[in-house]
């Protein structure tokens, strides 16, 4: 029996509420208020995991977020891998498993690996990448190395909340510094948000001695929190400031422990106060990774908060003053304590009942699955069941570093401290190198100075005064035995020496080569000893070696927090048709097209392909109904509207008469076809840009850009009315007859409403706009009506259409119809190099005298090449199947196959009874009639180059 729970005490635990949970299949008892780590310690469980590489036994090191060793996989509905046992509350029924251990941490069957450690030093993996063959090692290494296991079946209990928050002062850390700053800022009339990663505030005041304003520290903590709460200030326990981002945005991750996912906060404070404390460092000696060797400060915290005495015969090894109070407290709790201080002179007085050994350090520890003794540098050996170490304190300045704050080395503290101040950020307390409470409080006063001054007096420390004496005890090059630097990633002194020998001496190289500081703890206990060792090896000072870059997150954060509501359907929400439910009732099968959810077909047959073919065939035979509501309807209005559309379009548009439409291209400035569509001229100064469905936002942005940056705000006004109106298309030989049946109150005669013209009518009291344009090649009418009045019109069309065997068609049938006609879809039948003349539209390029977007690019050497890829139709030999879209036209040059273009669209045409295809083929426009080889997945077939239009080339059906 070594570690145990004391009969009384423990400020964090509630002895009236016992709990039971399982660790590696064994039941562990504890109390409400225990962490997994404190309960394991109270139950004397020494081995809690296995190391990443060598499968060395690992015990609990710390009591907080810096924990390198005690990682557990939590199972069940709140499954989380690699959870720090030191920060995870123990709860009834919890199931925890040690990491990288099979079947258990105590009896790990891969423990033999440690005997081969010298064959797998730092950079072992990198070297096997080069020689002999990484693939021979990879499967076994992947199985044996690593930490926790992800439960692939786990699903999130829900979406994580994300909260945007503003305040005057954000205080990170509710230890003495943070509490003092928060209280003073609140007193100065500022709004304060106080966050702390522990469940209860107080930080070191929860266990170290302190008396503030004449009261016990615990009372002062309670009063301060009560005062902040009463003032309406936000206090967030169990919340970690994970990162500082541009312009001082602070990310917080808040835990709940009630089954809810964590909450992500985005805080924009006017002033950030970092009171993040400091983390205790290990000491270097052989086998310093054995279970039972832990942070002295952590042992103190467990003693006071959880009434856990970590051992009976304890060695406390230190190089600084902070461990003296720990040794005294443990001795008072009736442990046998030897305090070994590296320093010969200048030490504090020996604590009562503890034996002080000065001027000595630990050379090694012994033990198999837990420490059983130590040997000092003079050869003296002591038995021990627990070794507590304090190698000094590393200020927690990660957030300051993330904010690009420069660090300054302090010899007095043997640590990096915050250097030149960063706008909007103050670092106070132990994070700034303060030791005594008086120093801490003195720093809290000016922490929010840019926002105002406090009139209240600073808190006064009235208890004993802590001192910060320290003699550096960095790892020494050439030391005997295996001395661990990074417990989690198994990096030893020898590994750092190896890196130096192989010239990976820069701190960033050292990190990648040895993986020092790259584990889930991000080297919170190991980085500084590691780079100090590198300094020693290379004859440099610690600041000359420098630190690696600080990056968020400070501790691991669930991806669910960052995802928030952007999961599943909400990841990329689709746009929906006003008539979606009507189409669903009609049997429509929906698919996403360019961000819109649209009917692919109406499910007339069980087989989708047959449904689509049937729709395409019947559309040609009589009349088709199609929901074209997604088509762009961007209005361009104003005195310069005609000049504006002339500039935006490749085609001259200003010659268009009111009431008429014209098809045209929009180009990018590099000449590439960006969009195509019909422009409607409603009046002298009013146009409607009917762009492709998936391009509406981009076209709108482009119109705005040229309006604001070339024409001026007074010249034109642009309004995107796409979703104002639904557009129902009626197409086919009987389309006019069906329209007549609706009684729209206008003449449908071809003289009054010819192809490429518009007219206005009304339906059920609402104005409708009829646009006679065609994407099928048949006589077609697009009826646009207020979106909220479209449903009766669609129903009327369906009902009246029965007399004509009308068919509702989805987008797939429309794609067949337009391909039969050789009508292109931008981005499918064109790519990022296609110029308008590649599509056979050369007129404006040759004839236009006025400026337009992309014009100059049509006259470059590249644009004038005679071997450009041009739009063609492709016909297959009789009886063959459609060409695969994307298949390449090939030719042989000097015995080598070379692409000469590719198939862009390909369908079986039910009307023609044969496949139709479009493609972009080199010099294609001049090669009609030529047969070429088409290659797909190694197979070669034939196709004959034709004009793009395979159906009704004379265009007679437009008027039929």
């Amino acid at each position, binding site marked *: 029996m070594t570690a145990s729970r004391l009969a009384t005490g423990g400020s964090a635990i509630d002895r009236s509420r016992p709990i039971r949970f399982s660790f590696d299949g064994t039941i562990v008892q504890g109390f409400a208020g225990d962490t997994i780590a404190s309960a394991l310690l109270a139950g004397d469980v020494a081995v809690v995991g296995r190391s990443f590489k060598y499968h060395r036994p690992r015990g609990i090191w710390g009591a907080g977020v810096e924990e390198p060793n005690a990682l557990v996989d939590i199972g069940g509905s709140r499954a989380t891998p690699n959870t720090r046992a030191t920060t995870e509350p123990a709860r009834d029924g919890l199931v925890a498993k040690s990491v990288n251990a099979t079947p258990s941490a105590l009896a790990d069957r891969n423990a033999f690996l440690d005997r081969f450690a010298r064959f797998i030093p730092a950079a072992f993996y990198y070297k096997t990448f080069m020689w002999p063959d990484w693939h021979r090692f990879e499967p076994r290494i992947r199985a044996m190395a690593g930490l926790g296991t992800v439960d692939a079946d786990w699903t999130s209990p829900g979406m994580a909340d994300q909260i945007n928050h503003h305040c005057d002062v954000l205080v990170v850390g509710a230890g003495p510094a943070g509490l003092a700053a928060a209280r003073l800022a609140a007193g100065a009339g500022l709004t304060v948000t106080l966050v702390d990663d522990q469940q209860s505030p107080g930080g070191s005041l929860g266990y170290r001695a302190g008396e503030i304003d004449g009261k016990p520290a615990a009372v002062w903590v309670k009063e301060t929190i009560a005062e902040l709460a009463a003032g309406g200030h936000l206090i967030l326990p169990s919340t970690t400031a994970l990162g500082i981002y541009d*312009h001082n945005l602070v990310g917080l991750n808040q835990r709940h422990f009630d089954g809810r996912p964590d909450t992500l906060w985005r805080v924009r404070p006017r002033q950030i106060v970092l009171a993040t404390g400091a983390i205790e460092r290990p000491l270097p000696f052989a086998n310093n990774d054995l279970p039972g060797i832990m942070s002295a400060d952590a042992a103190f915290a467990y003693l006071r908060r959880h009434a856990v005495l970590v051992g009976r015969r304890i060695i406390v090894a230190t190089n600084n003053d902070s461990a003296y109070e720990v040794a005294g407290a443990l001795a008072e709790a009736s442990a046998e304590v030897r305090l070994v201080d590296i320093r010969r002179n200048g030490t504090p007085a020996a604590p009562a009942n503890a034996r002080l050994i000065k001027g000595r350090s630990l050379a090694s520890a012994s033990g198999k699955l837990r420490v059983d003794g130590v040997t000092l540098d003079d050869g003296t050996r002591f038995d021990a069941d627990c070794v507590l170490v304090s190698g000094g304190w590393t200020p927690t300045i990660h957030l300051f570093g993330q904010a690009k704050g420069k660090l300054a080395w302090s010899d007095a503290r043997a640590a990096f401290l915050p250097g030149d101040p960063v706008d909007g950020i103050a670092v106070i307390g132990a994070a700034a190198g303060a030791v005594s409470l008086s120093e801490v409080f003195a720093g809290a006063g000016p922490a929010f100075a840019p926002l105002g001054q406090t009139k209240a007096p600073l808190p006064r420390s009235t208890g004993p005064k802590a001192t910060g004496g320290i003699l550096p005890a960095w790892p020494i090059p050439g030391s005997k035995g295996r001395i661990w630097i990074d417990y989690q990633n198994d990096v030893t002194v020898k590994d750092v020496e190896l890196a130096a020998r192989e010239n990976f001496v820069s701190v960033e190289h050292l990190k990648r080569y040895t993986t020092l500081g790259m584990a889930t703890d991000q080297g919170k206990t190991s980085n500084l000893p590691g780079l100090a060792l590198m300094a020693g090896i290379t004859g440099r000072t610690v600041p000359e070696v420098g630190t690696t870059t600080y990056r968020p997150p400070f501790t691991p954060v669930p991806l669910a927090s960052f995802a928030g509501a952007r999961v599943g359907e909400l990841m990329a929400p689709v746009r929906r048709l006003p008539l979606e439910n009507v189409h669903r009732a009609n049997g429509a099968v929906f698919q996403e097209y360019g961000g819109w959810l649209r009917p692919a077909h109406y499910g007339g047959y069980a087989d989708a392909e047959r449904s689509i073919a049937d729709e395409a065939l019947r559309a040609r035979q009589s009349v088709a109904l199609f929901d074209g509501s997604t088509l762009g309807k961007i209005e361009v209005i104003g005195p310069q509207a005609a000049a504006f559309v002339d500039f935006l379009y490749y085609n001259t548009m200003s010659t268009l008469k009111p009431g008429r439409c014209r098809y045209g291209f929009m180009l990018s400035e590099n000449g590439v076809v960006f969009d195509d569509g019909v422009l409607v001229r409603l009046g002298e100064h009013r146009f409607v840009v009917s762009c492709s469905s998936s391009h509406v936002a981009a076209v709108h942005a482009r119109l705005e850009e040229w309006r604001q940056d070339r024409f001026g705000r007074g010249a034109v006004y642009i309004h995107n009315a796409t979703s104002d109106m639904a557009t129902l298309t009626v197409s086919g030989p009987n389309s006019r007859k069906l329209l007549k049946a609706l009684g729209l109150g206008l003449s449908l005669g071809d003289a009054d409403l010819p192809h490429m013209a518009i007219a206005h009518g009304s339906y059920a009291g609402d104005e409708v706009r009829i646009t006679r344009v065609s994407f099928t090649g048949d006589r077609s009418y697009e009826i646009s009506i207020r979106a909220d009045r479209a449903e009766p019109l669609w129903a009327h069309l369906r009902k009246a259409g029965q007399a004509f065997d009308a068919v509702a068609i989805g987008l797939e049938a429309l794609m067949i119809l337009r391909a039969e006609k050789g009508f292109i879809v931008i981005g499918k039948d064109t790519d990022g190099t296609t110029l308008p003349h590649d599509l056979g539209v050369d007129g404006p390029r040759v004839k236009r005298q006025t400026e337009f977007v992309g014009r*100059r690019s049509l006259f470059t050497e590249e644009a004038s090449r005679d071997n450009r890829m041009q739009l063609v139709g492709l016909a297959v030999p009789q009886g063959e199947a459609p060409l695969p879209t994307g298949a390449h036209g090939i030719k042989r040059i000097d015995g080598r196959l070379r692409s000469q273009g590719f198939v862009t669209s390909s369908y079986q045409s039910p009307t023609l009874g044969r496949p139709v295809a479009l493609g972009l083929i080199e010099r294609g426009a001049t090669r009609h009639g030529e047969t070429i080889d088409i290659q797909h997945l190694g197979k070669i077939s034939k196709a004959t180059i034709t004009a793009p239009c395979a159906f009704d080339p004379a265009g007679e059906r437009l008027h039929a």
Partner: protein
Amino acid sequence: MQLFPCPFCGPRDETEFHYGGDAGNVRPDGIDVPTDRWAGYLYLRGNPKGTAREIWVHMICGEFFVMERDTVTHKVLSSAALDGEHAA
């Protein structure tokens, strides 16, 4: 996350904005523009270290504006609406 000041809406998260290119990249009109000049307009960018004058658009209100910012410190130095009166 940077805060950009839209001249119309005030400070907003950078995710609400799109970059619109270097300010002062004047478009040369006509088909006689020398190839180099046109290529420069299309592709050549200053990419300065330090102060940059840039066009940005606030996607929420749709307004383009000129913003000066430091590409090293990410400090925003100024933002101003386009004068919007180029039209004759």
